[in-house]
């Protein structure tokens, strides 16, 4: 279950387009569920988010992503493929930092597995983020796991 997760900088339109172009090769898939996570220009007064600087524990992230993919492939046996890309380094507001694509024979499996993958990514991938504000101050953020 070797799987390259980390992308240096934003996940560009070119990366997204090239992955979507490959979906047509999966003729046994009936649905693809895609989640695109984008850096939101959260506005805290003067502290408007300009960018996020992501850092990751590279060895562990590949191992943990492999576990997520294995676990979901076992739970949803109609799933044909799961791809996860996550940025490291600087990603500007409006740019993409996460891409999850799940292909399945039937739509229901694609949608459920993708939704679950997003939650598992948030909970278990060793990634940290520092928000950089318009005034060039910065702050570390944690996921709140509701």
């Amino acid at each position: 279950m070797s799987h390259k997760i980390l992308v240096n900088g934003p996940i560009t339109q070119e990366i997204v387009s090239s992955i979507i172009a490959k979906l047509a090769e999966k003729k046994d898939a009936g649905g693809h569920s895609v989640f695109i996570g984008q850096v939101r220009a959260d506005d805290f007064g003067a502290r408007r988010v300009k960018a996020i600087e992501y850092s990751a524990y590279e060895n562990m992230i590949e191992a943990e992503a492999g576990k997520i993919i294995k676990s979901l492939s076992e739970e949803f046996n109609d799933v044909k493929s799961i791809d996860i890309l996550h940025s490291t380094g600087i990603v500007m507001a409006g740019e993409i930092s996460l891409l999850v694509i799940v292909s399945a024979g039937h739509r229901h499996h694609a949608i459920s597995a993708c939704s679950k993958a997003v939650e598992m990514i948030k909970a278990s991938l060793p990634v940290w983020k520092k928000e950089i504000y318009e005034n060039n101050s910065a702050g570390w953020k944690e996921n709140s796991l509701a």
Partner: protein
Amino acid sequence: MEIQVLFFGVLAEVTKTAFKHYRGVTSFEELKMRVGDDFPEIAHYNFRIAVNNELVNGDPLLKDGDEVAYMPPFAGG
């Protein structure tokens, strides 16, 4: 034992380093004390520890060459 200790996120910022090499480590418990003495500021932060990419609870047995990571709460996705 020789152990490589890694710091991530805000911990790398407050310790001002991403890693530190420890020699002559006798146990996980002793390693944690040495790290705490070298970087007392980390006591102010929440973190979890992984050994060789696996989160640990309690006091695992270390072996020579292990990688011990100090990790603040995750913020990916």
